[in-house]
């Protein structure tokens, strides 16, 4: 009901102010003078002048109102109730609110409850009237002021456009705020973590054994990053071993050999791989690839764990094939055609042209693309959570389970709502490490790719 009234008020103010501004502008134009701005802009400007104060009043009430109302109810509570603990106090206030809303409460009502309920109801009605009236009043004042300003020389359009531009700028700052938020929150929590564990022990420790937060703060545990970092590097390395040859050869074939029709079909189909959610790859690795690898291993007589660095790496490699192939494809198409034609004209075969001319020319760009792919692989979470086996031990055999930075972030933070202990704070230190690694990789990669583009443009 109240939100309906508020919405109606705002709509009425909007309609009234816009039409006032618009008609004011029209009336001026009808007298034959040349207006700086069209009547539309006068309408919008008046509407802004009218709605802004009204919205400010309503917003202030939405922020402050609940607190004020609570204070009002508190003043009606008898002293013995006021001294109750927060839970019982809240329950008492809720009862009063239920009475005030007319819903009623189950069971008998205390006399003070009824009194407070009735008073709260009156107060609410009164406050609501005051807020609505002041919002409407201020809105009308704004409207009258803006309405009086309308003149042929008023630069209404410029003001409106300035506001729009301000709005656009505010939107583009959101991305900056996001980065800032990431950096500040990660640093903040990571520094708290480093009050428990020395940074040296974290970055250069070789044992990961965080213990459980339930065993008390005395058992802090050991937080060595190296096993996780090694797991991350190993899984990403295997993924690149799969993705680079397949992705590069796909890109070469599609850009240099394939007929238009094959290209038109194969390129989008391969890019489907990039659109599949990573949880699906994780499940695929867990139920299909892992057991298959382990069977193959037992046939060959080598022990391969169903969940291992190998399983996760293979499937992650499949995931980044389209990433490598479409980026390299783009880059190879940017190499000037004349280089290729020159080489072919001298009698080189297509493969010789590709290997000796095209690839060396495209190399910096491809390296940049591969770095982007590596950063993708390092930050990938779901595949490793499901298929890497979660065993944070420094091992060098890829057929054994490993753990990675991302897996550990998930394990340490999931289901934990208070971040007071090192067990959950470590997730932020790991996140910071991950963020820094990928940031450096991205910066270098983007720099290389941009340099490469400029070289041929």
């Amino acid at each position: 009901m109240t939100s309906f009234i508020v919405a109606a008020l705002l709509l009425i103010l909007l309609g009234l102010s816009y039409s006032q501004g618009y008609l004011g502008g029209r009336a001026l134009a009808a007298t034959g003078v040349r207006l700086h701005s069209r009547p539309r802009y006068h309408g919008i400007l008046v509407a802004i002048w009218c709605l802004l104060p009204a919205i400010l009043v309503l917003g202030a009430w939405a922020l402050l109102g609940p607190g004020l109302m609570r204070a009002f109810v508190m003043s009606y509570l008898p002293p013995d109730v006021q001294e109750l603990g927060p839970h019982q106090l809240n329950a008492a206030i809720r009862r009063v609110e239920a009475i005030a809303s007319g819903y009623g409460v189950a069971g008998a009502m205390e006399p003070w409850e009824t009194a407070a309920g009735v008073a709260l109801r009156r107060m609410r009605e009164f406050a609501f009237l005051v807020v609505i009236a002041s919002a409407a009043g201020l809105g009308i004042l704004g409207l009258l002021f803006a309405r009086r300003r309308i003149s042929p020389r008023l630069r209404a359009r410029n003001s409106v456009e300035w506001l729009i531009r301000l709005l656009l700028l505010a939107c583009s700052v959101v991305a900056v705020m996001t980065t800032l938020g990431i950096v500040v929150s990660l640093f903040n929590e990571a520094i708290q973590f480093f009050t428990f564990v020395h940074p040296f022990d974290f970055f250069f420790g070789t044992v990961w054994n965080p213990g459980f937060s339930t065993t008390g703060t005395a058992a802090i545990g050991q937080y060595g990053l190296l096993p996780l970092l090694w797991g991350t590097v190993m899984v990403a390395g295997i993924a690149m071993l799969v993705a680079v040859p397949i992705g590069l050869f796909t890109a070469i074939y599609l850009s240099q050999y394939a007929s238009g029709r094959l290209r038109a079909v194969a390129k989008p189909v391969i890019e489907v791989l990039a659109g599949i959610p990573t949880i699906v790859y994780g499940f695929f690795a867990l139920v299909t690839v892992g057991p298959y690898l382990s069977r193959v291993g037992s046939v060959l007589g080598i022990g391969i764990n169903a969940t291992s660095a190998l399983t996760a790496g293979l499937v992650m490699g499949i995931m980044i094939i389209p990433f490598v192939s479409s980026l390299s494809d783009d880059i190879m198409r940017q190499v000037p055609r004349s280089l290729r034609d020159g080489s072919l004209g001298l009698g080189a075969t297509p493969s010789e042209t590709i290997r000796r001319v095209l690839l060396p020319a495209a190399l910096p760009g491809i390296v940049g693309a591969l770095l982007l792919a590596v950063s993708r692989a390092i930050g990938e979470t779901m595949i490793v959570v499901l298929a890497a086996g979660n065993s944070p031990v420094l091992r060098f055999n890829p057929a054994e389970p490993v753990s990675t930075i991302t897996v550990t972030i998930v394990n340490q933070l999931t289901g934990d709502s208070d971040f007071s202990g090192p067990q959950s704070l470590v997730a932020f230190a790991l996140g910071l490490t991950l963020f820094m690694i990928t940031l450096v990789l991205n910066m270098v990669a983007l720099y290389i790719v941009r340099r490469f583009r400029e070289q041929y443009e």
Partner: protein
Amino acid sequence: MASPSSTSIKAQADRRRVRVRASLGRRHLVEWLFRGAGLTAIVIALGMVVGLFWIMISKGLPAFTQATLSAEVTFDPDIITAGPPPVRESGQSEADYRAARMAWEGQVARLNWNALVEQAVRNTAPAGMEVDRRTALALVSNIDRHNLRDMFVANPHLLGRTVKVDLLASANTDNWLKGTINRDLPDSRQQLSAATRQLADALYADGKIRFTFAWQIFTNTDSRSAPAAAGLAGAFVGSLYMMLIVIVLAVPIGAASAIYLEEFAPKNRFTDFIEVNINNLAAVPSIVFGLLGAAVFIRYFGLPMSAPIVGGLVLTLMTLPTIIIATRSALRAVPMSLRQAALGIGASHNQTVFHHVLPVTFPAILTASIIGVAQALGETAPLLLIGMNAFVAAIPATPFDKSTALPAQIFLWQGNENRNFFEARTSAAIMVLLALMITLNALAIFLRTRLERRV
């Protein structure tokens, strides 16, 4: 005429020709191998796409049918002893009536509904077959007693009547009849007792147990006590809320900031910084956004854990760079002459952008937004950090309620202990998720081709 030097040149050329010809075979072989390698790579990549879909579909399809027992259920007054539901008297406050009603429903819930289920199974069993309590209850799902209770609460006139009801078979029965568990395993390793297995086979042979379409995948929420009845409805609504938040926030903010950066921003350090920032943000691992959500939205702003509002905000921040980058490239593709023409006839800068440039890029912005939303739909990792992988057995009423999401539900199900049942169920959930994503992408492609033709 032939001088010594020219004969030596000729001889040199001949020698070179011989050498080239001799190497040709090897060079062509290399060429052939190289081409073959390229073709192999493509075949492998395409094979992966086909294989992935094939495995998901072949694993998931069986989960869309489930064993159902059609039984005659008698709402026996000897078992249902709760009496008639309360009626609201005049002068009774809403709260008092609700309390009385709740008390009655509580009484109904405490009745022995299992006895009703047991009776129904026993009556359906083939004549002469001894069916004890445990055998009967293991055959059907744990949800059936709740369903019968809800039927009675909704319609108390059922008391004393006998109606035909489809009882959902338990997950273990489903496994047994579908053969997802090895039938030759010894008793100790079977999920069902020998008696229940025999009963299930007999009922299946009688046609009393049939495989029907598993509507509960779409209508039910997740369930722990009755895995056979676990569904995606809660996760779907949670995902829907998050997608709405992403659409409402990410699309306008993304488009607006792209417009600012491409059309209005002066070239200076600050805008360069924003640009580098956005490019980097696009490559930040998604899990870092989850950490941001946990630290900022939940811890600092005090928003609830596991709520779609937090998930939606996190996914919004994640999708923003995608939409900004795509919109910017669309704006960049608009020919300068269009802007110059508008400016030339006296349009202001804003008017040029909003009346002339933006409408041309509309299809591209729309496509980018849909693709961004589809990406956000499948994102899992950040959701785990803000608690959206919690078990929630209710459909969230608002974006502030506890909820899960489709990919988080997949994550939950793949870890369920009843592996042979949930492997299919998870694949089915994956099929639903993939179907949604494919629909979104197809919509994007359709809109793009359609709108681009018109513009």
